[in-house]
């Protein structure tokens, strides 16, 4: 049973803000929400992690509503180099195995 649901693909023009929403209706109290980015033939790369409200780093922002049943990854002013697959994961803290879905394939167009 999938823990998260996210769009299969999205397209965006360069310079636009991209928001990718992930649904996780069965999130547990001790679960964190984590997003990874993966370029072709490379390993996934950690982007951002949050538990509630809003988290921002130099790469992205993560918005989590109070019920935590969904989250939105926001990429400001995307460029062609942001073309990648983005994975939303819901995992408890600690060294638990990561469970990846199929992710969202983002294509940035010039």
């Amino acid at each position, binding site marked *: 049973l999938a823990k998260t649901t996210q769009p299969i693909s999205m397209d965006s023009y360069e310079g636009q803000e991209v928001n990718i929403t992930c649904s996780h209706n069965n999130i547990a109290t001790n679960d964190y929400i984590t997003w990874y980015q993966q370029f072709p033939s*490379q*390993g996934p*790369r950690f982007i951002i992690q949050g538990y509630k409200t809003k988290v921002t780093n130099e790469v992205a922002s993560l918005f989590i509503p109070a019920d935590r049943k969904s989250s939105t990854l926001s990429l400001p002013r995307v460029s062609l180099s942001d073309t990648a697959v983005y*994975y939303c994961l819901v995992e408890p*803290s600690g060294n638990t195995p*990561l*469970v990846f879905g*199929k992710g969202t394939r983002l294509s940035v167009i010039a």
Partner: protein
Amino acid sequence: DAGVTQSPTHLIKTRGQQVTLRCSPKSGHDTVSWYQQALGQGPQFIFQYYEEEERQRGNFPDRFSGHQFPNYSSELNVNALLLGDSALYLCASSLVVPSNYEQYFGPGTRLTVT
């Protein structure tokens, strides 16, 4: 600071053969996890090693085995290769920090079974 390294980059094997893939974790990390990623799919967890022992295992047959060495590096062994074992094999290392858990992935080894 070297990140996670994996070798070899690419590998071609024949059905029935055996293969060994290697991983060196990020400096300071003591836990290594292995994932298999088929084309168009997300990575699937194989197993995790900590203190030279297999701590957790995913839904993979016994043909998949591993080892962790005292320097925290790790090997993934696959016996009796099948065509379906063709995939990108990813190694990830980590160091548990409460409430801030992140795994660092290597570039992967592309295994092709013919």
